[in-house]
């Protein structure tokens, strides 16, 4: 269990760094979506299924959608 949690946390850190580094903003949005999704899995492993559901629905789905709309409306590539 400890190992699985550590892997999830390391993946979260990696995708969070990727979200900050990517120049293509659509890729950055997807990376931040992965952070939320992994956080949802982490919440589920820590026996908080209610929070996991909220995180998966709001953090991974709705926020990503709103960011996609925002990127579409502005510029796709960071200078």
């Amino acid at each position, binding site marked *: 269990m400890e190992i699985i949690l550590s892997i999830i946390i390391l993946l979260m850190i990696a995708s969070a760094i990727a979200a900050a580094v990517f120049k293509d903003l659509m890729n950055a949005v997807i990376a931040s979506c992965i952070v939320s999704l992994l956080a949802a899995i982490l919440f589920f492993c*820590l026996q908080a299924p*209610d929070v996991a*559901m*909220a995180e998966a*629905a709001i953090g991974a789905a709705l926020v990503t959608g709103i960011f996609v709309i925002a990127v579409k409306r502005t510029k796709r590539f960071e200078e």
Partner: protein
Amino acid sequence: MRKLLGIILLAVIAAGIALSLEEIPFGISKTIIGDYFNKNGVEETGATNMVTSVVVSYRGFDTLGEITVLFTAAIGLGALLTGHKKREHSDKVEPSSLIVYTGCRFLFPVLMLVGTYIFIHGHLTPGGGFQGGAIVASGFLLMYLGCKGKRIKFKASTVIEVLGGLIFVGLGIAGLTMGEDFLFNFLPKGEAGELFSAGIIPIIYIGIGLKVGSELAGIIDNLIEEST
């Protein structure tokens, strides 16, 4: 130089968080109130999901406040965006590919069903009005992104939203008149674990689910309207 300063600052913050969290034991209940809910919660409210009974029953008034915050945010966004002139769309919008279109149309009813299931069974299984409402809204988001040109009916969404709010406040006031306090659970509690149990808790959660779902769908509608 600035990067080095940033890294040092981050390291200091990380060390502070790590040192302060080290003192706190993880996963151990140190308060009396948690034990009380675990022991007496099912008897007192009739709901098997402890989180729901705390959110809707023990601190139901706070939940009304949360709903109001979301409502105010949705109204604010709507007021901010409707001031702009709406552009002509539906002529220039290019249709999405057949695979995306069919996939979205296939997934939409499934998402609706899952969301509705989650907020109807909020008092039995994990999840509830907020989570179910968010899943319903994400179904609408999928529809907006995948099947361009489709819109929700503004009137219907408003009616559902008002209905959800009225259910919550109406049941609260009904509890005030029948019992002694706001959101008093006046309906029979039934047998714990059944769908029709826990008195007013599932009814309130269905109201919350409808309200949150239509509000978030309205926010998405406002944003997409602006962006196409």
